[in-house]
């Protein structure tokens, strides 16, 4: 049984505007997305900005209301359409946020920040709590003595690790990481990502990694879903997608990855041009008249593509 299974997830935001806030077409941020995350796996959601990957993650944890669809966690139905959902489900699912600056309350000390989930779900004496927070901080590579410091005394990478410490405080099974490193500089990115892999192995965690950086996704993920305008265009294992991309959108996305070797610059340029012309040529076939992708169709045991209706 999959740890997390998402079926036909839809999140629509009511569009309002015009005269007297009359209802217009809803914004279909997520429009029928489905995937499974197995235990210990990392699932990557990729897409350009506005493709609905963040909304998907937020809907799973309950920060956005579902319009329809279902999310099951260990066989249990999670969000019952109600806004916010039930609190006690959240114990096993935690989130790492994108912005390490605004995701830590500037008026709170580290002790209060990291202990917040503990205070909500576990009854610990102040002494035990301090001990746990010290351990957690040590685990993420910060000095255990910094529990009385404020977030602004730390650098971006350190702050993100404080966020991770908060997320792993309850020993969750699934962590949703919403662009966890996109606000950090490159050298720190690698550090934080490797650290995430380390705790994944140690705590048998599953990740839902949301990112627009294909390099990070390739480095981290077992399975990948590529989103475009709220729908999946292609889903499969990392190998499937990077070695045998089927959808033209995926191909175009992959061709955008910079190649380090200057000798291959010309070659890469020609390759990109070829992909681009193919994209323009085949666009009509791969997307419906609204510019949306078709439903996914399996082409192998692990690989699904939003293939055109005919051919």
């Amino acid at each position: 049984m999959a740890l997390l299974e998402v079926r036909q997830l839809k999140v629509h935001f009511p569009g309002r505007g015009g005269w007297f806030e009359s209802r217009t077409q809803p914004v279909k941020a997520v429009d029928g997305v489905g995937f499974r995350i197995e235990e210990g796996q990392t699932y990557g959601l990729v897409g350009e900005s506005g493709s609905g990957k963040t909304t998907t993650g937020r809907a799973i944890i309950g920060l956005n209301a579902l319009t329809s669809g279902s999310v099951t966690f260990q066989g249990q139905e999670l969000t019952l359409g109600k806004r916010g959902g039930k609190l006690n489900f959240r114990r096993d699912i935690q989130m790492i946020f994108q912005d390490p600056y605004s995701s830590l309350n500037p008026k709170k000390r580290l002790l209060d920040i990291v202990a917040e989930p503990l205070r909500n779900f576990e009854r610990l004496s102040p002494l035990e709590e301090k001990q746990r927070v010290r351990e957690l901080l040590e685990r993420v590579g910060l000095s255990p003595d910094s529990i009385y410091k404020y977030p602004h005394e730390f650098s971006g990478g350190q702050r993100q690790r404080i966020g991770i410490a908060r997320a792993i405080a309850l020993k969750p099974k699934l962590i949703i990481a919403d662009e966890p490193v996109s606000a950090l500089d490159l050298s720190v990115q690698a550090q934080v990502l490797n650290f995430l892999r380390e705790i994944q192995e140690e705590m048998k965690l599953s990740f839902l990694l949301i990112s627009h950086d294909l390099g990070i996704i390739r480095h981290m993920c077992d399975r990948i879903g590529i989103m475009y305008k709220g729908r999946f265009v292609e889903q499969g294992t990392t190998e499937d997608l990077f070695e045998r991309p089927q959808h033209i959108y995926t191909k175009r996305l992959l061709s955008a990855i910079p190649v380090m070797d200057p000798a291959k610059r010309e070659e890469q340029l020609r390759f990109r041009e070829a992909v681009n012309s193919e994209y323009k040529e085949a666009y009509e076939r791969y997307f419906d008249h609204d510019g949306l992708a078709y439903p996914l169709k399996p082409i192998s045991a692990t690989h699904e593509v939003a293939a055109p209706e005919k051919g």
Partner: protein
Amino acid sequence: MLKLSTNKASPQARPRQPADKSPSGLSIVWREIVQDKIALVSFILVAAVTLFVYVTSLLLDQDQIVRVDLFALKQPPSSEFLLGTDQGGRDIFGQLIIGTRNSLTIAIVVTLLTGIIGVLVGLVSGYFGGTIDNLLMRVVDFFMILPFLMVVIAFITAVPNYGITAFTLIMTAFLWLGIAKLIRSKALQEREMEYVQASRTSGSSHLKIMFVQVLPNLSSIIIVTMTLNLAANIGLESGLSFLGFGFPESTPSLGTLVSYARNPQTLEMRWWIWLPASILILVLMLCINNVGQAVKRAADARQRKG
């Protein structure tokens, strides 16, 4: 009045905090006040007046002071009556002390009450947004369009035996609106911060997030508005009493003392009745405002002097 040159902040006098400890909000406020000499003098003045008034009023007997004494009508200042007497032979100095105490008390109580109501309504409204926000803000709008002065005047005409409590409540009923609007707008900004969502995913309830997570981030703005409102409320009470819609004569306040000046004879010939109270109002309002400005600067790192 305050003959002080605007001393620019002297950099060497700045007390440095040790690097490993972040300065607390109060110490920042205090540093800002110390850096601004006018604010410092104002603060000391307000503290001294408040302390003096509250301590001395404990020793004074209000009934004795407001008792009419036909043998001592309209006396100029003398050694017996430090600031003379009014047309009822009542000691102005004693009335001034008790009046200042009454005025300060009502201003403080009104400020606190309006602060509590305003922060509660504003926080709930801004944090939840949507329908709740809409509903609460329409209530606020309703109170805002009511003419404050007219309602107070009508109330006082209709209720003959109003006292300090009724007066406080009616002022409170109209003065929480501004704070609610202000706090709402700040809470609307604050709830979009990711730490609010992080608290949500940590399993905190809305109530807990509002008061434990969001409220501390609004504390500086709350302190600033409350300080400035305190000065405004002293002025408002005095204004209403001056017009005769504040305290009755049996409860002296700064406003009732000044209102004696409505009599042209008193205004021209017996300055000792109304001048001290007027000066005291001016000094108190100016000083609290000065302190409030310093606190305001302390709340915004870009405006700080210290």
